[in-house]
Every structure is written in structure tokens, then in C-alpha cells.
């Protein structure tokens, strides 16, 4: 196969590097603004669904209260709505379920004490992986430079 040549036509753009850089900055800012766009105020249904999604359905295997077709899950969803309508906060409702079922019912382990480990481990792993990759690269690149000299 013929060696692939760079396609120089791609460079022919109508504006110079400075203009394109400015355009890029504008784009980045636009996108950032859009990404951080205003969060819509949640209505009761959305709040109830969000709480239910954080709770594990006790009678099912690995399903959230929001997703489960089980009757107990339906009753829990109803109870969440009633409690919200009565003016309880999301935290109060979640705490209520934890006090009855234990932390087991939280699909996401709470961030405290020993349980921090599961949250930190991925970050530590990524940093370690990145560090190993970097030091490997540096060693390998350095030895290749030595070789070239």
C-alpha cells in the first residue's frame, strides 16, 4: 500500500491562525455556558422519582425502588410522594428509609468513614495508572533518545 501522505488541502482555511484561535475561545465559552445551563426546578414527581432511584427495592434483586414493579416498591413510591407533599425534605425522607432498613437500602454508599474507600479507589487507581504510564513513557523515551545520540 502506498504510504499515506498528509492531505495539505485541509490547511487551506479562509482566516488566519489568530482569527481561528479567537473563534475557538468563543466556542469554548459558549459550550461551557451551555453545559452549565440553568437546571430546571424540579417538580414533585421528579423529586419523588429521584429519591426512589436512590433506594434499593427490598424484595427484588438489585433493582431500585423507582424501577421495580414489585408492590412494596410501589407502596414506597407512594409513601415518598406523600412525605414530599407533607413538606419533608429529600434528606429527611432518605434518612427515614435508612433508619428502617439500614444503609443497605442506599444504592449509592454514603460518603463517610470506611465507605470513602470505594469512592476514592477509582481516583487512586487512575492516578496510579497515569503515573505508571508516565514514568514508563519517560524511561522508554529517554532510552530511545540515548540510543539516537
Amino acid at each position, binding site marked *: 500500500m502506498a504510504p499515506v501522505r498528509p492531505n495539505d488541502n485541509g490547511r487551506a482555511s479562509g482566516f488566519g491562525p489568530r482569527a481561528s484561535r479567537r473563534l475557538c475561545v468563543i466556542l469554548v465559552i459558549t459550550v461551557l455556558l451551555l453545559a*452549565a445551563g440553568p437546571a430546571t426546578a424540579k417538580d414533585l414527581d421528579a423529586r419523588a422519582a429521584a429519591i426512589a432511584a436512590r433506594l434499593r427495592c427490598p424484595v427484588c434483586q438489585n433493582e*431500585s425502588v423507582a424501577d421495580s414493579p414489585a408492590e412494596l416498591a410501589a407502596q414506597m413510591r407512594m409513601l415518598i410522594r406523600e412525605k414530599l407533599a407533607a413538606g419533608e425534605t429529600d434528606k429527611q425522607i432518605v434518612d427515614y428509609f435508612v433508619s428502617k432498613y439500614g444503609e443497605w*437500602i442506599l444504592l449509592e454508599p454514603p460518603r463517610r468513614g470506611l465507605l470513602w474507600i*470505594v469512592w476514592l479507589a*477509582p481516583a487512586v487507581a487512575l492516578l496510579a495508572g497515569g503515573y505508571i504510564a508516565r514514568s514508563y513513557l519517560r524511561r522508554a523515551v529517554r532510552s530511545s533518545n540515548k540510543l539516537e545520540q
Partner: protein
Amino acid sequence: MIATLGSIFLTLALVCAVGGLVVLLAGRRSRHDPVRAARGRLAAAGVFGCVTLAVVMMEAALIGFDFSIRYVALNVNRATPLVFRVAGLWGALEGSILLWAWVLTGLTLLVAVEYRGKHSELIPHVLTVLLGIAVFFVGVMVGPANPFARLPVPAVDGRGLNPLLQNHLLMAIHPPFLYLGYVGFSIPYAFAMGTLLSGRHRDEWMTITRRWTLVAWTSLTAGLLLGARWSYDVLGWGGYWAWDPVENAALMPWLVATAFIHSSMVQERRRLLRIWNLSLVIVAFLLTIFGTFLTRSGILASVHSFTQSWIGPLFVTFLGLATAASLLALLARLPQIRDEGTFDSPFSREAMMLLNNAVLLTMAFTVFFGTIFPLIVEAVTGAKVTVGPPFFNRVLVPLGVALLIVMGTGTALRWGRSGAEEIRKLGWLGGMTLLMMAALGFAGVRGAGLVALGAVLFMALAQLGEYVRGAGARRIATGEPWPTAVRMLFALNRQRYYGYLIHLGLAIVITGIVGSQSGRIEVQRQLSVGRTMQVGGYTLRLEGLEALPGPDKMVVAAPVAVFAGDGTASAGSPDSTGAIELLRPSENFYRQARAPVATPAVRSTWREDLYVVLMAFDPGAQSAVLRAVITPLVSWIWVGGTVMVIAGVLAAWPSRPR
């Protein structure tokens, strides 16, 4: 009769495997021993033949309703249709181990025959490892998990398959793909271990097993995809992935294997990462065993786990032995394994592959750690905690975004050392991505979804750019028209260009995942016949209730007319004119189960899925409880996944000899 024969064949298989192992291990010192190689081959053929006969016996028993066999009585009844009697082989524990052993011994024989007379130093070691694994699986069946175990008194009729499995045809094909994927990784593992054991070869194993790895990877991809689809079609909650321990068990080896496929390219091109690649293959294999252990032992409560049994300790033992053997072999050879190659520059495709390995391995580690973390906490403190979907989504989504960016960058960079041209290319990719993100943002996409889609776009554009660049270069060199140029790219460099196609398939899958996670609408309501309910842009009207008795199940269906828009005008008319679709969600009552299995009905378009589940019905009051879910872009997952699988098959397809 069948049971006796089956047990005899399994015992013979074990004898053959152990015999082959003894022969292969005995002649270790003499290097070129054609007699030994021939005997090893013979043993492989014998094991495969015996296991095949055992499979035939089991299928005969399942198809012919031999209820004197416990396994048959538990998993088949007289009403079970033929397809699911055949599929009963992988419907429960013992049978699935038989299938596993069958695939494994088949692949072992294939290796023995395919490389007959080649790599004469390596192959005996490879066969040793493969037969060693086979001894375990066949031994489990001869011992505690005998699929041919008999009932004291033959049953008059059987119980039947788990109805969740019998309720969908995908169940008939999903497990074989998964097993082919799982077992397929035994081959690169055996070659890697063979290399370590023989201590003579360096990169040969990798070139030999490249296609095996691709095949296993593609099968595992297909298995994951079919499993997700099964979950979507059967479990009735409108989702396709629940971070269930068993789903995680299949995802982990997939992630590690994906990392290996990429880092093995670095080894082949640059003669680097030798130890790393050996470790990756070993880890991928151990994860497949770990996955089987999770599924079979009932150690973690899961929708999929078969039963709790004594099989757990056996698998832990095997896992421990395999880990110890692999580590010992690796450590023993460590001083002899050297990386000969060098990196030219960190600004290169191979450096990006290193990063991609770091991210993929972090993802695999996160899934692994999250899956076993509740066990760790319980072992240390005694407390029960759950690590569920919110955790995995929160941690893996950012990692996925990082992976996409690394993928796009890696594709845009060149091997060796990138220069100004690549910087320009990245600038163009980044600029176009930002433009499209801005457009998406103005179209209403916000937050994490926008960031994720941006990463997908960046990655996809980079792949498309490679096709454009490659075909453009061909056009300049040969003057071919575009279609020919693109076709020639695929023909001349299958693995590279089908590899980019796999990336594009993944981009489609991730778009589907992002979409389905963002704008989900769900309504559950009790309706009388003739009444309507609104969900998103649809109006649903319950048309009636139907009971349809079938041979193996009783189906209660609730026909639902779907109208577009708020549809009050047309929905008011008594007939279903104006309805865009008639969906028939149903509940299926199987003889073998007390609770019905809901079968959702789905109206699927490229834009969104309307998913309707019959939750409950009351024939007296002529009413039904319907649950309707609208999920955007779900079909993209199936399309993209299919693209990945087809591209994977084509990438692994042997190219025509030129």
C-alpha cells in the same frame, strides 16, 4: 440408559484429559518429540469427542423428556417448546458447565489441529494449560455437578425452565455467545502461559492469538449486547443495564480484553509492554473464571445467579490455583523478559494507547471493586451496604468521557512521533466538535449529556477523519473513485479499518446510552377498557383484555392503541382508526411459575422507544394497570452494538492470501 451413557462419556473425557496432561508433562525436557505432540493431539481429540457425546446425550434427554435425570426434570416440562428444550442445556448450572466444557475442549482440539507441526516448542505447553482447565471443568461434572445425576424415582413431568429465560428467544442464543467469549480468552491465556512455561518465545504468542482474541472479544461483545437486549425485553423495567453483579462479571473481562487488544498493537509494533500484555491476558482469563464463579456460586444476590451451592468453594479453589500458577510463572520468567523497543515520543498513538489502558483498567477495577466492596465491608465491619447503579454511573461516566477523548486523540495521532500535521488535525477535530456541541446546546442538550455527546462526537469525527484521510491518499496515489478507495482501505488493512468501524459502533452505542439516560418519561396508571392515558407525545387507549391459552403458557394480553400527539380527537372514536400502532403488552403465566412474567410491547423508532408493560389486570372490572416508558435513542444501542459485532467479525475474518 442415557444417564448412564452420559456419565460414562464424562468419565472417559476426564480420563482422556488427565492422560493427555500426564503425557504432556512427562516429556517436558525433550524439545522436539513428535510422538508426544501426537499423543497430546489424540488426548485433545478424545476429550472433545467424549464431551461432545455427553452433550448429545444431554440434548437427547432434554428433547426426549427423560425425566429420570434430575437436570431434565428441573428444567424441562412436557409443554416446553423444542427450542427451549435444546436451550435447556444452558438454562441452569450443570448444563451450562457442560456447554462451557464443550466449547473449551472444542477450541483445544482446534488449537491442536490448526498448529499441528508448527511452533513445536510452544504448542505442547499450550495444550497442557488448556487440558488443565478442561480437567477442572470436566472434573466438576464427574464430581459434584453431574448433569446426568438421576432422580431416585423418575418424575412424571418436569418443572420447566426459569420462565424469565423461557420468555424470550434471545435466551436461546445469548449464553452461547457469552460462553464463547469467556472460553475464547482461555486460548490467548494458554498461549501466554505456554510462552512463560517454555521460556523461549517472546512475541510469537501474540501474533498467533491475535485472531483468537478478536473472536473472543467479538463474542463477548455480542453476549453483552444480547444480554442487555434480553434484559430490556424481559425484565419489564424499561432499562437494559442494571450493574448487576453478573453483568459486571461479563463487563470486566471485556474491558481488560479491550485494553489488551490495544496494548498488544504497541507490543507488535514497538516491542514494548511485554510483561504488561502477559499480565493483561492473565487478568482477563482470571476475570472470566471470577465471572463464572459469581454467576454460579450465589455469593452475591443477583437476578441471574442460578443457585447457592457447593460449587462456590470449588470455583474459589480453581481461581486460587489459576492465580497462583499464573503469578508464579510470570514471576519466574520476569528477569528474562525485556522490552527491546523504545518510545519515540509521548505525542504518539502508542502513548495514547498507554493512556487508554490506564483508563480501561481503572474502569475494570472500579467495576470489580464496586462489585465486591459490599463483601469487603461485611468482612471487616459486619455491616451490609449496597454499591448500586448510581455509584457506577457517577464514577464510570467521567472515565468514559476521558476514554473517548483518548480514543479520538489516539486515532488522530500517528505511530512513532506526531508533528505539526497532527496538531492541526486535532485543532480541526476540536473546533468541529465544539461547533457541533454549541449547536446541540442551542438545541436544548445540557449538562453532563452535552459533555458526553461532545466526547462522542470528537471520537467519531476522528474515526471518520481516518477514512477520509486514507481514502484521499489512495485517490491521489491511484485515482480511484471514493467508494473504491474506501473499499480498498477495508480490503487491504482489515484490522485497522474495521477497528475504526468498531469505534464508530461504540460511538453510536454511547450516544444511545447518553440519550436513554437523559430524557426518560414514565407513567403508570390504571385504565378501564376504552379509556386513555397520556405519556409524552403519545396517547394510549386500552382496547380490551384477551386471554390466549397456549401449549406452554397462558398469555393475557392488553391491546393498546397508540395515538400520536394528545390524540384526543381520534382516541375518542370507538375504532382504532388514526392509531399509529397497536401494542400488545402481556402477562405470561407459565405452568412452572406462580408469578406471571410480563412481556413488554415496544414501539421503536430511531428517535425514541415507547415501552408499555402490563403490570396487572382485572378481568371482572375490565381494567388494567399499564406502565408506559418513553426512552430516547435506545435503538441506537442495538444498532451500534450490531455494528461493533459485525465489524469485529470482519476484522477477525482471515484476509484472502495475496
